[in-house]
């Protein structure tokens, strides 16, 4: 799947995507990250061929999804909203969507049976969507995406309503699905720990532009794997020493300490030695592994509580 210089301007002049380029490797799990309004959902709708790019090229499984919508037969989709018929039971809902997609009712009964097994839906099949908890409804919606064994599965915030047990199981299912079916998964999520658990690659969108695209491990490595937090008696002096060493200081979450991102524990030790040698009084020191959340928030220039 590939976006090449894709721009999407909605009628009214709103620029949702601005010259966006990224690609998703086959048989991988790719996460789309970004704040609300960053362009994630627009990207997903372009992948599905629901929207036409204003300029640039979107290729999905080697085809243009807007001009060749038949490619949707190979795509599974979990949207932002459940999108289930209130009047129909879960079974009828799944059958109706399958019938729309595949046409063959007998095949659909088999397919729905299979996804019901995979997501343990049998007890829910006779119920109507509004009788289900948000988590169970989300399981149904995720199961629907796997009808017809799609080659590409696109999920918009798939794990948000699930309990921890089902979150873990869905993540496991997605990994196994990619491995066994040779499929590709693209998903967006605000839960960055899930992204860390699941994604091979990430694309970070900010105000309709890609600020990073590539491997997750690479991103964590590039941005520093160790976060050193130092609270000093004289913060200005500390920042001065750090900048002399070529390090960029960030304000830590407590609003007083300073955080720097480093490649290794030994580099952290070197920095601390240099700071002590410069006569900076230290009140508090801690090192921790850099999380995707730290990196993401740095990219957005935001604090954790924002």
């Amino acid at each position: 799947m590939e976006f090449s210089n894709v721009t999407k301007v909605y009628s009214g002049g709103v620029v949702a995507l601005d010259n966006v380029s990224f690609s998703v490797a086959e048989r991988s799990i790719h996460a789309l990250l970004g704040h609300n309004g960053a362009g994630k959902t627009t990207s997903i709708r372009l992948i599905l061929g629901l929207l036409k790019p204003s300029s640039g090229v979107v290729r999905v499984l080697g085809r243009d999804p807007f001009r060749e919508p038949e490619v949707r037969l190979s795509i599974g989709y979990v949207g932002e909203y459940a999108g289930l018929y209130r009047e129909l039971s879960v079974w009828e809902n799944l059958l109706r969507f399958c019938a729309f997609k595949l046409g063959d009712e007998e095949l659909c009964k088999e397919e729905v049976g299979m996804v019901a097994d995979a997501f343990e839906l049998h007890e829910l099949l006779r119920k109507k969507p509004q009788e289900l908890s948000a988590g169970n409804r989300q399981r149904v919606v995720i199961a629907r995406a796997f009808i017809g064994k799609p080659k590409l599965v696109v999920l918009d915030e798939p794990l948000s309503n699930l309990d921890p047990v089902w979150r873990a199981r869905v993540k496991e299912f997605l990994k196994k699905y990619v491995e066994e079916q040779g499929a590709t998964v693209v998903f967006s999520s605000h839960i960055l720990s899930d992204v860390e658990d699941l994604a091979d690659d990430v694309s970070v969108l900010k105000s309709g532009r890609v600020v990073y695209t590539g491997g997750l491990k690479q991103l964590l490595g590039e941005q520093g794997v160790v976060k050193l937090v130092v609270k000093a008696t004289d913060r200005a002096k500390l920042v001065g020493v750090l900048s002399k060493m070529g390090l960029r200081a960030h304000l830590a979450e407590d609003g007083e300490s300073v955080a720097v991102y480093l490649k290794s524990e030994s580099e952290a030790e070197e920095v601390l030695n240099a700071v002590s040698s410069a006569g900076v009084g230290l009140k508090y020191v801690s090192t921790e592994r850099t999380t995707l959340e730290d990196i993401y928030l740095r990219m957005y220039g935001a604090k954790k509580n924002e």
Partner: protein
Amino acid sequence: MQARSLLKMIARMGVNDAKFLALSNKAAFAGAVAFLGLYPSIVFYNMLANIPLSQLPSDVLLGVLEPIILVNSLMCSMMVAIVVTSLVDVEKSEHVLEHLFAYMPCSTKVFLLSKAVSTTLLAIPMTLPYYVGAYVVLYRFGVADVTLLLSAYLPAVVMAVSLTLLLLLLTLIMPQKYMAVLRSALIIATIVGLTYLANLISQGEASLSVGIATPCIASILMLIATTLIYIKYSDVLIEKAIR
């Protein structure tokens, strides 16, 4: 898209929508069928009661019956269009429409066209009671003519396709409450307008040619207008709806 794929799409859509209507709201479905069958038949019988049918030669009799059947057919088709597009309104408000778009292996534009055509095909079973009733009446007066019923049905089909498409396009951009008001207004206008026209014809106050021409011209004008809107604005409207 090839014509064959489009036809397959229309058939798939029609079958699924019929099933959905029957499954999701049995009472409303039965009510709609009963209404479509009974109301025009009642109007039809009322009109016939005012005409000394048995004294008329068969060609004059046909001339009287044809516009009445035509007008009633149009009413049936409009009702079906209104009922089925109200289903799309529900699909839109429950965010199902977006998923249907994403699951259908055709463009959203083709999806809407297929929906409009399949809706019209749905009109056949839904308006069957009316046509059976009309045929029985014609048979009683010895002028049973399937061609007559078909010739009445064709303008009704044109009207149903264009009206459905127009309502679908409007459904994409208009809030549900406004669509409900619009549908109610259409139902009232349809019943009042067409009943009035049919009465004028049956009482001889409007000429037969005017009686036939008015709904036919209206159907064709609506078809042209809707086609133009569909070609020119459907992409923008779809984008607005999806966004």
